[in-house]
């Protein structure tokens, strides 16, 4: 028997379809939500600062002049390296200096071409707060130098300086 109920079901179906399409359209067109990025940004700032400092320590002030970074590594002068690094790192244009801390090690080729690590600056007794520590690196070319002792010996080689940097 034919009556009007089929027509009503069809209209309801079409209306429901339209509502679903509209809903999908509205949801998809909504601005996507950013994940909170409050740990990545300070990471990027610290990384940029650390690699700037290493680059500037690797740049002599005069043409053919002393290269601070190479000198500290050659002499194994961890204290000098830390003082110089933190002086650059904590300097601000006004107000109080920053409170960054660091440790550093050097990866080099030892005897028998073994890859070894040397702790140049040990970590201090501070803890990082909310922000995580970052690692910055720079390859440094050491020239042949007969007077250089352990651990790098006299051979010319490229060593990798790794600095761990954190705010306390």
């Amino acid at each position, binding site marked *: 028997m034919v009556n009007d109920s089929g027509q009503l079901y069809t209209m309801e179906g079409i209306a429901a379809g339209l*509502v679903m399409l*509209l*809903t999908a359209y*509205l*949801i998809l*067109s*909504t*601005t*996507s*939500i*950013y994940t*909170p*990025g*409050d740990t990545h*940004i300070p990471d*990027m*700032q610290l990384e*940029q*600062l650390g690699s*700037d*400092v290493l*680059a*500037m320590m690797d*740049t002599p*002030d*005069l*043409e053919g*002049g002393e290269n601070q970074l190479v000198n500290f590594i050659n002499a194994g002068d961890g204290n000098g390296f830390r003082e110089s690094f933190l*002086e*650059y*790192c904590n*300097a*601000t*244009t*006004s107000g109080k200096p*920053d409170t960054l801390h660091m440790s550093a090690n050097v990866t080099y080729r030892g005897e028998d071409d073994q890859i070894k690590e040397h702790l140049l600056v040990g970590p201090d007794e501070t803890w990082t707060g909310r922000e995580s520590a970052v690692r910055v690196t720079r390859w440094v070319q050491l020239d042949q130098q007969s007077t250089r002792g352990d651990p790098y010996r006299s051979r010319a080689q490229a060593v990798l300086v790794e600095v761990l940097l954190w705010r306390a």
Partner: protein
Amino acid sequence: MVALIAVASMVPGLLAGLQSSGIDYDAVAYRTGVILAEDPGWPVDPPWEMKDQYHKDEIERMGLAVSNETPNILLSTKIEKFFNTSFFDPEDYRSKVIFGEIPYSYNITLRSLDWTYNHKVGQETPEGYGYIRRVVKIKEPSVAVIDEGFRNQYTISPGDNSTTRTFTVRLDFSRLINLSIDPAYRIDPRTEPVNITITDFSEYLNKTSTPPIENATLKDVTFWGGSLSFPFPYDTENPDLYTLSLDGNPYDLKPEAPVESNISLVLKPAATSLFPLDQNSILDILFTFEDTDYPHTNITGIHYYDYNTTNVTRPALKPAVLEVAIW
């Protein structure tokens, strides 16, 4: 139902807008820091920092780096120009270094660790702003100091009775613009001032006469390329082009004035750009001394403005810190 869905879908968008603003400012500060520390700006030849008030619109981007090969090495002349707030207004900083459609507020500061540079533009920072700090080194212009140590080299031979004395400082561009020298240490008169200082000038005076004379007359300072004298506004004092001081007093390049102990000439890159020079040219700066009665000075010779460390002193790069805050 539809209205409810519409409202519900707008709420996260509203919150996302508020949350993302902090991230945005840090990114803008980072970008501004990169432009300032790693980019020489645009145009480069002639460099943007030489543009005057009438050509300010030609400046597209203000970067402070010496060249694009030397990130974090900043040029002192670019720094002086950049922090000149009587030349640039806030809109210039927004459109030439910060960029973006939003009118950001900014605070850009630069300080050398020895405090000789301490510059600032922008407002005081509020709570919560985008921030980046860069560690840089500042390159300063070279100086030729001619003191009594050069006396034997630059004194005329006895028996010469001409009344005019000329002393030449020679800039050989083919020696100076030497591509094998790192741009961080290069002497480039096209971007940096040339400084010539004659100290101990009294040691070059003609001491044999009685009574002993106390000064000599500097007739003029002229610029030559080979045997041609360059046209130049010699008789107008113009600190944008040059400064000449005799015993501490400023003069134009035709002083006709007595000098006792000290001559100092600073030739700015804006002046060098007026001369028809290329990478193989030679620029001679001639100091002519003339006195009516007899020569009052014995100075003569050619001083080369080059990479010889006894002729020209190149200052050490100065460590500095650059901070950019955007909100």
